[in-house]
Every structure is written in C-alpha cells, then in structure tokens.
C-alpha cells in the first residue's frame, strides 16, 4: 500500500511467512545460531528460555525449517514439535509418534519404545539426528519431564542421535533444578537465553528490515518516532513489525515523507493499544540477562 511512496519494493514489516528467510533481529540470530550448532554438534539436551513475547516460538519454527534442510531422501531428518506439553505421558508419546511419522505395532509402552529404538538405530546408521522440540516447557508437569529423560536414556549411541530442545519462560530453569530432576539437569549441555531488543537493536532491526524491503535513502522514521515505537513495544519484534507497518500506513495516508511520534501514536490508537505492550517483568528480564 505505502511501499512505493516510501521508495520500497515490498512491505518491510510483512515479509514472507517462511521463517528461513525472515530477517531476524540480532539477538535472535545469535540464539538461533547457538541452537543449530547445538543440534549439529549433537549436544543432546538443550534448554532455551526467554520471557513472554520475545519470539521463542518463531525461533523454534526457524530452527525446524533450517534443520529440515539437512534432510535428503537418503537421510531423512525426523523432527517433532510439541507446542502444548500439558499432556499425560501417553499423550506425549502419541504426539511424538505422529510428528516423527513412526508407528508402534501396538499402543503399549514396550511397543512404542521398540519403535523408537528402531528409529534411533536407523538414524544412527544414516548419521542423522532425531530432533524433539518442546515449546512452553515450563508448563510441563514433573512426571512428563521425567518421561523426556527416560526417552533420552534410549539413546546409547556414541554420538547423541536424539536431540531434545526444551523451550519456555525463564521459570523453566528453576524448575529443572528440582532435586528429583537432577538426572535430567546433568544432561543439559546448551542453555540459550532470548531477550527483548534494546532501543538501539530495535532501531537497527527496523533499519535492516527497511533495507531488505529495498530502501536505499533515508529512513522514513525520525528519532522520536523510533523511540516511541520502542516505548510502546518494549522491543518485542512481532509488535515492532505491526506498529511500524501501521505507522507507515498512517504516514502514507497523510502523505508524510518522514513520520514522527504523532503517526506512531495514531497507529497505536488504530490498533487499540493504550499502554506499552505487556512483556516480561524487569525481574524476569534480569533473570534472563544474568
């Protein structure tokens, strides 16, 4: 709508939904890199934490997409993505089998374990990994976390075949330090932490998205507009995208080559935003940063 007016070739804040090519902000790129390196380095169990709204789920989808490109017909990479882990152990198995596209000969635990064994053996032979990603892992009941540990016990190969990524809010880490989960905690080899963007990262992210969209001249946002975007979004990328998109829409309607605070506030009003976006409390951010 406004792209031509601002000298852009496409909508900068509505890029392709394929996350592999979505331009991520710098902290997210760093976290994703650590996760990919963890899987490729066969680290076994990874834990990723980040406060609400910092883009954890988007990142996990990116991870799955990136990893899917390791797969070939000869060497398929199986991955499972569980987003709602408030399940019974039986339901978790069912979800995993469905996602991993494997079938047990009977709906019993021994049959399931046998099927998993076979999958791990086949993956070991073809030198690939089986990736299990569990989102919102802070919501997992302890008995389900224990089930994940037992799953990992199946993996007795010299190089870890099973790669588990537990992702959740910062309270996941204290959850894993409970004495009854000590055995699982010992297996954690990578901990990645995601945080919201700072003001300068927010500005850089906006500048980079505009560049990807074809901007070669001056930014259409003035300094105070960018500061207002940061204030309203608290550095949450998804919210930055929506407010910037709406702000440029407002700017186009008013034929403003340079948008200021007024346009940002008008956009926020259009979107029904009254207060700065709810994100993590400073305490949980501090925990994440530490």
């Amino acid at each position, binding site marked *: 709508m406004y792209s031509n007016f601002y000298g852009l070739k496409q909508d900068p804040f509505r890029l392709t939904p394929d996350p592999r090519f979505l331009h991520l902000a*710098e902290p997210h790129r760093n976290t994703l890199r650590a996760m990919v390196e963890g899987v490729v380095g066969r680290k076994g169990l990874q834990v990723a934490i980040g406060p609400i709204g910092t883009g954890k789920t988007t990142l996990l*989808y990116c991870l799955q997409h990136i990893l899917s490109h390791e797969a*070939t017909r000869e060497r398929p990479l199986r991955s499972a993505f569980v987003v709602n882990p408030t399940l019974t152990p039986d339901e978790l198995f069912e979800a995993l089998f469905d996602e991993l596209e494997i079938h047990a000969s009977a709906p019993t635990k021994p049959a399931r374990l046998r099927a998993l064994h076979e999958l791990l053996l086949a993956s070991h032979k073809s030198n690939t990994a089986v990736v299990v990603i569990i989102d919102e892992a802070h919501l997992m009941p302890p008995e389900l976390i224990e089930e994940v540990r037992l799953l990992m016990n199946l993996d007795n190969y010299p190089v870890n075949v099973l790669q588990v990524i537990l992702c959740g809010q910062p309270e996941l880490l204290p959850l894993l330090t409970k004495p009854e989960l000590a055995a699982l905690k010992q297996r954690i080899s990578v901990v990645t932490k995601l945080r919201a963007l700072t003001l300068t990262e927010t500005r850089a992210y906006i500048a980079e998205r505009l560049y990807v969209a074809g901007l070669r001249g001056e930014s259409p946002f003035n300094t105070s507009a960018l500061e207002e975007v940061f204030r309203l979004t608290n550095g949450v990328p998804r919210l930055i995208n929506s407010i910037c998109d709406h702000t440029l829409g407002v700017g186009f309607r008013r034929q403003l080559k340079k948008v200021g605070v007024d346009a940002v506030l008008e956009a926020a009003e259009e979107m029904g935003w009254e207060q700065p976006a709810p994100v993590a409390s400073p305490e949980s951010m501090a925990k994440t940063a530490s």
Partner: protein
Amino acid sequence: MSKFFNETRTVRKTDSVPATANVNIQDLVSSLKEHMESNGAAASHSGQIDLQHLLQPLEESNEVASQVAAVRLENCRSIKLPRTEERSFLVSQYNPAMQAAVEAYRTLRTRLVKQQTRTGARSLVITSSAQGEGKTLTIFNLAICYAKIENWPVLVVDADLRTRGLSILAGDPESPGLAEILERDCSYQSAILRTDIPGLHILPAGETSASPSELFSGQKWKEFMGWATESFRLVLVDSPPALNLADFELIAASCESVMVVARARKTPRESLAKVLAQVDPRKITGVVFNAAEETPENGYYRYTAKAGA
C-alpha cells in the same frame, strides 16, 4: 486427529514456500533455495552435516546489517590510515615484540563481544581520569580488532574536540568532522571517512571555535548516536578525560556503555575511583589496565570486567 494434536504443528520436509504477496522476496527465496539445495546435495554425499550450509540464512541476515552502513555511506570520503605510527596495531601486528599487546587487544575484543551479545549495547565510550593514559591508542587498536570480524562494521568517533588525538593518529584528515555535524547541519556522509581497513569507518573531530560542552549538550549529538548505532554494530567513542571536564558526562549520556582506561604506575587509585563514581554503574563495562609489566602471570595489558556491570 487426537484432541491435543491440533495444537501440535508440523513443518513438512518439503520445499514449498507459502503463497505471499511479496513477489520479490519470492524470487530471493527461490534463488537462495537453489543455492542451498545444490550445497545440500554436496553435503549429503560426504555423509557429514554441513554447518555452514545450515547457517547460511543467518549469515545472509548478518550481511544485511553491514550493507545498511555501506549503503548509507556510499559516497563518503576514503582515507588511507598511516602505517608509520609505531605504537599502532597497524604495524605492530607484524612486530613479534608487540604480539603480547596484539593478543591482549584480541582478548579485550572477545570479552566485549560476549558482553555486547548479552546486553545488546552497540555504543561504547572510552575515557580515563587524565590525559596520556592510553585511551586513544586502546580505542584505535580495539577498533581494528573488531573490524576483522566479518560483518561487524565499526565506527570510531573522535569526540575529544580539544586534543583531537584520534584524528591525528588517523593522519589528521581534513574537515568536516564531528564538530561540523554538531554545530551545523553537516551531513553524516560528508564527515565520516571510510578507511582502507574493510569494515572500519572513522569520524574525525573536525574544527570548531565553540565550546565542546555546548555542542554535546544539544539534541544533535543524541540524534547522531542514534543514527550511528542503528547503522554500525559497534560505535566506539573516544572522549576527553572524565575528571574536570563536563564533556564526558554529556557524551556518555548518549552512549550505552563506558570503559575506563587506567595506566599502570601512573593513574592514582583515587582518580580511578572518582571516575568510576561519576559513571552510571549500569553502563560500566570494565576497566583496561594499560601498560602493565609483562610477567608470566599478567600479560602486557590486562582487562578486568566489573562485577555486576
């Protein structure tokens, strides 16, 4: 489909790209995909996972960050940095006697990169308690170390408008510089210089008859730092000494982190304490202990990160 499974989404291992209105990005996707697939085929033959190939989309994103700076400064002036300055890393890297110093700068860079990743700070101002403690040389060599990281564009700003030490070290380029940006509406592109070290840009001090404190108290300094930090992954600012001058506090107000240089056997402990007390504790990144005696235990230079920074 089970009751929970509608919450469990799968990414199918196909190459289909969802329909989108963005035609150009689609082209980009196709070309990248072709490239990745050809690499992928090669990787599968070897039976090993090609990490580089998997990380390529992220590398492409990192390149975007450096392209932003390059495009914004497309028409800026270029300078060749002098190679005669004996203390400069530019020559010392070929001098075996200075290898310990080179190594110390690299260590400093590594620790700063780690902190930057954690805090997200893109601007760092370096100060000291008095003149001659080595901040300009530290900043210059640190910048050269940073510029060696791929896709990590660095801008060094000479904000010491009184002594202009960094500008002189860089061969004293002609104006305009920072003073002209702050005093008049001089464009950033006409003041910033591209150096012959890839990824390293310098903003010299420029010339002014106005009081530096007045220049830094205006909105233009804040505006400039905002622009610089969104264009460069690191903006290093060389400031005047922190004690007895108002400049430093005004400069530091628009910077996200502060590093203090102290010189062995020169900086009085009390002066260092005074400087540190003057800085916002949340911004203190660390203290560089410069020109320490070389012993097996401590290198030529030492860097200590401040606890709780």
